[in-house]
Each structure stands twice: as structure tokens, then as C-alpha cells.
């Protein structure tokens, strides 16, 4: 009796909330919901709705309205279509290369390497994240210029770089986004109990079979998670193409070009990567890996 009175007096807020579940829920969600709806969804919606608006042909002033001309442009101009396909292929290639590098590296780090090697590799993977994004792109540009490091280092072997082109863009994007694939994959592999490896080898499986039948199924959610990063980040990037792609255009290049000149076209075109990502996530959901993430 005595204690109850004291706690009531000393914690009025708690006792107030205890009796009102709705207020409790509201205060819990108020902040994140304000953020998600007010800042995130609304601004995205405002951006996308611009796709239906008109532009004054001379002053480039945007005025609200409704027309589908911008979508027609995006879906019929050959340059836009070619750019969409090119960007999709670049993003898929980058994702694939990241997976090919991340899985063996993750297995080595998690199961084979000595602790100090593992730590060293972990630092090496994350170190590039410490440098600015633009700095890394410019660095790649300098490495692959005609008189840059790559051609200089490879000159004795008679090898010359391809010059600024799509392969260099893929290489740059892989370099930029690799940590986002490597870290989740490594973490997932570390969490695989060691006795699964023992069991696999007890039953006569060789290394490759173990990776294929035991490790890979268990890390698919991590690979999907990583690929969402590498795929979507590559899809939206345009500075890598601008600085290391020569005349290569990506979806982002066209959006950036139009963002001031013709915002409605930019908004309409930004639907394309959104569409790609939605399709990608739906395919990932089909495989059931999103539920296991």
C-alpha cells in the first residue's frame, strides 16, 4: 500500500501511460512517422508528381498541370532507352562482380584466416569508406588516364588500359560499393556454426561442394541484402560515369542534365530506376530470401 502510493507519486508519467495504450503507441511512433511520412514520403511524392507537370519553353519555369509527354519522351527516345538498358547492365555486372569477390573472401576471412589477418582484411575492406566518395572517383580517374598509373605500371607487359569507357565505370562502381557486399556476406559466413563444415566434410563433401550446398544457401539473404546496396547504388550513380566513363551516359547523367533544364523529364526518368528496383525486390521476394533477412 505504502509503496504503491510512493511509486505513483514519483512516476506520474509512467502511470499515466500505463492506463492509456493509445497515447503510448502514439508517443512511440510520432517521431519516426513524422520523419517517414512528412520528410521522406511527401518529398518523394512531390518530386515524382513533377513528372506530370509542364515547362515553359522559354523561361524553363515549371508549372503544375497534367500531361504524359515526359513519360512518352522517356519511353520513346532511343538515347533514353539505350541509357536505361546500359545502366541496368552496368548495375547487374557490378553486383555480380561484388558477389564473386565477396563470397570467397568472406569464407577465407571467417573460417581460414588467422585472427590478425582477418582483422587486417576487415580494415582493408572498410578503409576506402573513410575516404570521400568523390575523392575515390577522381583517384580512379587519375589511375586510368592515358599517362596515369595503370598504363605506366603495365607498360613493361605491353598492356594498355581501355581508356575511359564502360569497363572502367564498372570497375569504379565495384570499387565504390564492394564493402556493402563484403561486410554482410562476411558476417553471415561467420555465423555459420563450424560443425556444419565438419558435418559436410564427414559426409565426404569437398570444398566446392560444401560452399555450394552448405554455405551459399545459408548466406543468400546476406547476398541479397548486399546486392540491394550494390545494385541500387550503381543504378543511381552518375559521377562515376562522368569522370571515368568518357562519353558513357547512365540514367543519373540524364537526370542530372535535366534537373535544372527540364525537371519534369528528370522526374519522369527517375521512375525508371525506381521501376528496376521494385522489379529487383519482387524477384528477391519470390526467392523467399527477403523473409529470411
Amino acid at each position, binding site marked *: 500500500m505504502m509503496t504503491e502510493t510512493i511509486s505513483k507519486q514519483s512516476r506520474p508519467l509512467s502511470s499515466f501511460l500505463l492506463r492509456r495504450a493509445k497515447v503510448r503507441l502514439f508517443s512511440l511512433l510520432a517521431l519516426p512517422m513524422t520523419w517517414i511520412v512528412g520528410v521522406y514520403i511527401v518529398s518523394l511524392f512531390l518530386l515524382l508528381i513533377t513528372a506530370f507537370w509542364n515547362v515553359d519553353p522559354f523561361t524553363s519555369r515549371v508549372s503544375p498541370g497534367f500531361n504524359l509527354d515526359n513519360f512518352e519522351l522517356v519511353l520513346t527516345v532511343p538515347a533514353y532507352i539505350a541509357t536505361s538498358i546500359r545502366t541496368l547492365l552496368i548495375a547487374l555486372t557490378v553486383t555480380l562482380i561484388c558477389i564473386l569477390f565477396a563470397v570467397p573472401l568472406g569464407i577465407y576471412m571467417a573460417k581460414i584466416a588467422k585472427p590478425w589477418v582477418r582483422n587486417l582484411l576487415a580494415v582493408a575492406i572498410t578503409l576506402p569508406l573513410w575516404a570521400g566518395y568523390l575523392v575515390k572517383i577522381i583517384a580512379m580517374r587519375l589511375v586510368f588516364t592515358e599517362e596515369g598509373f595503370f598504363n605506366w605500371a603495365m607498360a613493361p607487359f605491353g598492356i594498355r588500359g581501355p581508356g575511359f569507357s564502360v569497363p572502367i565505370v564498372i570497375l569504379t562502381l565495384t570499387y565504390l560499393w564492394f564493402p556493402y557486399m563484403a561486410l554482410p556476406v562476411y558476417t553471415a559466413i561467420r555465423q555459420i556454426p563450424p560443425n556444419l563444415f565438419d558435418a559436410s566434410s564427414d559426409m565426404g563433401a569437398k570444398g566446392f561442394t560444401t560452399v555450394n550446398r552448405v554455405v551459399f544457401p545459408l548466406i543468400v539473404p546476406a547476398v541479397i541484402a548486399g546486392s540491394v546496396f550494390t545494385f541500387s547504388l550503381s543504378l543511381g550513380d552518375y559521377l562515376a560515369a562522368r569522370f571515368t566513363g*568518357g562519353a558513357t551516359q547512365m540514367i543519373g547523367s*540524364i537526370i542530372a542534365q535535366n534537373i535544372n533544364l527540364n525537371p519534369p523529364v528528370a522526374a519522369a526518368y527517375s521512375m525508371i530506376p525506381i521501376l528496376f528496383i521494385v522489379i529487383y525486390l519482387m524477384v528477391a521476394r519470390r526467392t523467399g530470401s527477403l523473409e529470411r533477412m
Partner: protein
Amino acid sequence: MKGKKLAILSALSASVLIISGCSSSSEDSSAVSIEVPDIPMHEAMGEFEGELNIVNWSGFVEPAWTDKFTADTGCKVNPRVAGTSDEMVTLMRTGNYDIVSASGDAALRLIVGGDVQPLNISLIPNFSDDIAAGMKGNVYDTVNGKPYGVPIGRGANLLQYNEDVTGGAPESWDVVWELDTPYKGKITAYDAPIYIADAAVYLMYHKPDLGIKNPYALDETQLAAAIDLLKQQNQVIGEYWSDPVAQITSFVGGNTVVGTSWEVLRKFAGKENIKTTLPVEGSTGWFDSWLVSSTTKNINCAYAWMDYTSKPEVNGAIAVNFGMAPANVAYCASSPEAQAHCDTFFAEDEEFFKRIWPWTTPIETCVDGRKDVKCTSFQDWTNAWATVKG
């Protein structure tokens, strides 16, 4: 730095002194008039408001000359650097800025949009006879006879080349346009819709049948021809540039041998073998001026700023810092260094600038005076440009 400077001026071409040499045979300027909102101009100077918010190109507003201005007038200067003409237009439309260092293309859009006001030149004594003849009364800042801008400086889009590779100055722009160019894959071009005008300048010289009289007045057939030429160039191009740093590293690093450039970029490249030339076809260029917002609350500070920056020494300092020809040519005689700068950037060479077509926003009214046909607008150019790169 200056990104997309789509300038404006030629629009009403004959009235444009600069290009009067190019188009002297063409039509009279009164033929072209542009509809603009009616905004009153400032009648008389009053008290200084204490601050001035400027949208400017990088290098136009520096403490080296703003400190004295603030000390003289009490107007505190708040600069905001913009990277492209389009960004400048967007910023000025927020209403948060008093004055902008607009290139011709941004200028005409702002004037037509009612975002800037006509100027009372009698309140700007330094806007005098010392301002280069080629920079006064141009369409980009003088519409229907009303002045809207005070000139700052100008520069040409030149052909830059690596002499070690070319073995001399190319005489023609054909090295960047034709499929049989010896520099395939080593060519750079400016990355903006206004670059279509460069194709038009080339066609004017080599395909007179097209009847192009002004590279900013293209009817549909002429625009299509320019786009075809740009698509042809796309097959031999190495890189498009909008970022000056990228362009410089391309030339210095050997990825680019020939392409569009500015005199100031050649200076920054800092290599003996990298030179610029003005080919036989002539070229395009950019012209900058101060424009005052129609909604400014700091009108007296804005006028004081335009007058102050039109002084020979201040205008010269801006021109030297950015790397362009100063508008006030009285600066050139002030010292041997100043003269050297003016010579490098052709500041007093009106003959040189007569071969330059200043960037002008294309509009439906044909600025070469044709009445029987509708010309393509800037929006058409933007859409057409998107089809070039593929």
C-alpha cells in the same frame, strides 16, 4: 565554375554590337521584340541597407575587393557560388538574392521571367565609355532598348590542342567534327545543349545551303542538321566535359588531344604543348553581367556594388581572378601586367570578338530576323541534346 553558360545574346542579333560584325549584313534589330513583364526601375539612390546577397560564379566575389566595398558602403556581402546558369536561375527565383552574375543565357531567361528589373544607368557612373564596345547594348541584358545588366567580362570557346600530337594549330574545327579525324577517341566537347550552337557555327561555314545565318536561330531542318553532325561527332568523341577539372586532367593526362576549351583552362593546364586557337569558322563565347532581382530589398547596395565592380581596378581584379576579358578596358592600360592579361584574353580586340557568337538562349522568334518560319526554342534544344549521346 561556370558550367552551362548558355548565353543569350545574339538573339536580337543586329542590336548586338558584339556580333554586329558577323551579322552586319543581316536584318534590323527592331524586327525582333521580346515580351517582358513591366517592372519599374530604381529612380534615385537612397540609404544603404547594410547587406547584399549575391549569386555568383566562383571567383567573382572575393574578400580582396569586397572588404573595401563593405568599408565604403556598410553593405555586408553574402556570396553564394553557383555552378551552372540553370542553378543561377533557380537560386534567383527563390527571391533570397539581390544580384546575380548571370551569363547571357541565364540573363534572358530571368528577364523574360520577370525575375530581374531594368536598370537606371544614370545611377551607375562607372558604366561608361570604358566598357568594351562589344559588351554594351547586347540582347542578353538589353531587351527592347531597356538595359537590365552591367557587363562584367567575356570569354570565347576556343579550340584547344596538344601540339606534341597535332604538330601545329588546327586551322579548322573539322578535327573535332569529321569521322576521318586523326584524333578519334581523343576529342572532347562541351556537355550542354548550348553546344548545339557550335555545330551550327561549323555548318554555317561548311554547308551554306542550309541557310544558317545565326547559330541561335535554327529552324527545324537546321536543328536536325546540327544534331546529325553532333551524332556523327559522338562516334569519334572521347569525352564530354562540364567540369573544368575533368577537362584539364584529360588534356594533361593525354586522354584528350583536341576539343573545346577556355583560355583560362589552358592557363590552368600549365603545359607548354597545350595551346588554343580560333579556327577559321569562328566560334561561340560567353558574356557575363550583373542583374538585379525584381524583388530585392537591398536595391541601393546592389547599385553601389555594380558601380564599384565596374571600376577599372575592381573589374580587372575579377577578370584576372576568373580568367576572362574584363568589361572595363580602362583596366588594361593601368599596368604592364594588366596589359598582358588583356592581350592574353583579347580584351581590347573587337576584331577577335566579332568572330565569336555569344551564347544566346534560342527562342521561337528567329533572332536572325526570319519571319516566315518558327525557330526552335531552348526546350527543343534540350530535348534534342538528349538524343545525341545515346
